[in-house]
């Protein structure tokens, strides 16, 4: 463990996720205000040197130049700002750029904001947008949205490894139970295995409770050079590994329908230069946009052998209190999935967990964590490793 951390999170803010009255400007402002307010020794907004805004621009809201609006809401018009878009992995990739900015010595303190406003449009327009990050020329023309793409993966997974319904249901039940402990979660209620098993189908074999909701929300983290982190707090959370990966956009062209090579590559890169091994990880924040995605993530990231993630999940190991809690904040499944905000929200959760401030959902003794953020059906992925300061 001798390698130096690459960056440090010194403050983090999070709005409620869900169907919210606030517009995108207000959501950015609220998340940033909370992040700034969370810095133990305070921070002068004037000391922020650059802004990375993660957003898909869902519904077409300010697809171009949205970063300038975010800078306005930070209260720093004129701040160097850029929008980062890698679909649902936008937040993870914005964090990656922030890490690079401080690790390279180019900046000392930068701000990462994740945002999406998804519920203020008509149902038709929402469906219109929900598939824009998948393969347009082949998958979309075959009538697929992401639920369908993950439905195909689940279909193949069940063919290779046997019935998977109970494991998928357990992912939903677990993440809803975790979400019930998270005051920011979109869904804060538990569900039963029977409710999940009898839910109406969406993209069979996936049904309603296998799918994450469409949510509004924003999250923000302040990322500092490790050398200056203690200027802001005695308990920074260090980013000790960062990896990204990509794969064919269309699932049909990938090596396997059951593996996200982008996730595997991102995890390998993150661990390659980190002072950590998988066995050191105390909790995972994985991209469970659909329940099957959590099983695939456990295998792609190297925490379960191929075909065994379901068994691991059914054993209770991934629940709070288990050997390896997964998505203690409820995950995308229960916390919600405002597209651009999700990757930043994962970092927010780890910031709380590794500082022992996660309240009822605290993973006891957590020192090291991993976040995993996937774009679309696995065309891009970002993985980050964190250690308590």
């Amino acid at each position, binding site marked *: 463990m001798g390698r130096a951390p690459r960056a440090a999170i010194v403050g983090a803010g999070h709005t409620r996720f869900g169907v919210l009255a606030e517009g995108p400007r207000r959501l950015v402002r609220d998340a940033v205000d909370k992040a700034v307010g969370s810095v133990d020794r305070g921070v002068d907004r004037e000391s922020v040197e650059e802004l990375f805004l993660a957003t898909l621009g869902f519904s077409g809201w300010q697809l171009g130049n949205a970063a300038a609006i975010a800078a306005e809401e930070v209260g720093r018009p004129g701040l160097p700002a850029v929008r980062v878009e890698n679909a649902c992995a936008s937040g993870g990739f914005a964090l990656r750029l922030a890490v690079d900015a401080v690790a390279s010595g180019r900046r000392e303190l930068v701000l990462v904001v994740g945002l999406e406003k998804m519920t203020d449009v008509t149902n038709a327009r929402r469906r219109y947008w929900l*598939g824009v990050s998948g393969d347009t020329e*082949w998958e*979309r023309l*075959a*009538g*697929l949205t992401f639920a369908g793409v993950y439905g195909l993966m689940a*279909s193949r997974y069940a*063919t290779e490894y046997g019935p998977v319904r109970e494991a998928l249901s357990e992912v939903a039940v677990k993440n809803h139970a975790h979400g019930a402990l998270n005051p920011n979660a979109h869904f804060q209620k538990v569900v039963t295995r029977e409710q999940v098993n009898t839910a109406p189908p969406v993209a069979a074999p996936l049904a309603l409770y296998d799918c994450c909701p469409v949510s509004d929300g924003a999250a923000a983290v302040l990322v500092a050079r490790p050398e200056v982190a203690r200027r802001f707090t005695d308990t920074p959370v260090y980013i000790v590994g960062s990896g990204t990966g990509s794969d064919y956009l269309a699932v049909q062209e990938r090596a396997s*329908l059951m593996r996200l090579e982008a996730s595997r590559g991102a995890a390998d890169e993150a661990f390659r230069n980190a002072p950590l091994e998988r066995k050191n990880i105390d909790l995972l924040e994985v991209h469970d946009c659909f329940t099957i995605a959590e099983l695939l993530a456990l295998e792609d990231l190297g925490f379960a052998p191929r075909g065994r993630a379901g068994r691991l999940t059914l054993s209770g190991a991934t629940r709070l209190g288990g050997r390896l809690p997964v998505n203690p904040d409820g995950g995308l499944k229960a916390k919600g999935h405002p597209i651009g905000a999700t990757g930043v929200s994962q970092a927010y959760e780890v910031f709380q967990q590794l500082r022992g401030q996660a309240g009822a959902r605290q993973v006891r003794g957590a020192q090291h964590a991993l976040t995993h953020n996937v774009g679309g059906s696995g065309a891009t992925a970002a993985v980050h490793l964190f250690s308590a300061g």
Partner: protein
Amino acid sequence: MGRSILSASLVRPVWQHGSFRIEGPDEDPFTLAVSALNRLGEQVPIDGARALQRLHLVGATSPDLDWAYGEALGSSALEVQHHPANTQGLWGALGAAAQEEGSPRREAVVAVDSATTRADGTVLRQPLHGAGAAAFVLGQEPGLAVLRHGFLGHPPGRLPSMKGLIHDWLEALGLPTTSGRGEVVFAAEDDLARWQTAWEDSAPGVTVTFPERAPPHLGPAPTIRAAFLLWELARRLRTGRTGAVVEATRGGRAFAGFRLDGPVRWLGNWGETAPGLEPPNERFFERAAGVEAVSQGAYVPHPRYVENLSSRWRLVGERCPQCRALGFPARGRCRSCGRSEGLQPEAFPRTRLQVEAVTSISPGAQPTEFDSIVAAAGGYDVAVVRLGVGTRATVQVTDTPAGHLRVGDRVDLVLRRLYPMEGEWRYGLKAVPEGLGAGAWQSESGPTSSVPPVRRPPSSSAPRGSRSTPHRPGARPATRYRRAR
């Protein structure tokens, strides 16, 4: 020198309304014609070096899509000619295609009847007749008899007797009247009893049949009912005899006749078959009354749509000359070794493809551009099918309710409408369960079992409609289709 009928095919939709077979919400005259031609293509190569020289279209086909037939068939320089949407149109097209005009290349004739779209594009809410397509490919092949034909017309004024007319017709076709065992399939608008007597008197050596003008599922279809007469003749010529189709109109003032010497390869059967599928609801008939733009987030501009139609419509991928790896769709770069020079197009078969994964899209979960398909026919399946080593395609499943397809099943791919966009329909390949659906290889044995097919997939041996497609336990399809009674 003339041409022979190398092969013929018939397709009809799986959907049934009353006694008529009608096209589904993703079918139109273009897809019906291409389906019939693709069936021919499986029997007699009509692409590459054997590409068609000319295509004769008879029926409600729009000239706007003339460019698309060459793309769909892999014929780069295909000349398209349109003929009137009636019986005479088909006879004229067949006569034109039978004439060899200095080129040995092949020509095809397709007769199409749409139940819901008129030739001028008018959309009908209630079908007036059935839908289907018949296709013929004509060319030169040693051992096959040349298609001889004759057309005669008499000006206003005194008309010869019926016996005299029949004599003239048989002479025009070179058919013996008193010797041999010829077959004639005869159609006339009226006076059938008198015609029957006249035939018996004037051509005692010829067996004459007077079939119904079309089977019930076609009804008064204006175009392809004539093709039914040819099919009936071909059915009667299984044993290699000589015969002709003869149609008299206007009391015999006009005559069209085609003579066949021996059997014809003919795919499909217009005889008795299992009932079709009933439309699940009235919205089935609310098809777009024209091509409207559909708002779409995942936008595919027209140039990108037509850029790779060979992959999209004909399943053409590529093979790397260096590492031999296959790729689909063709992108001009080897996915295995990265080579971008010299990749060779390679067409994958479109039949009997194995399903690797399948999902059922429930109503409401579809992208908005598929709303009209869902409104008409309910949710649908989407499958990933295996093409070859390391290659797959993602396709929507059609002609069958959602939830019936399973991993490991075999499917055939057919060209269908996807959705309208910016004034045009977008088309692509969809999957139908093997042996089911218009244009799929079906079980029906045609009239020509004595002529061995050139290449016939094994699937063609299973009886149509016999395939069992049980519901998946625990995942009841949102839509159930009923077989028409």
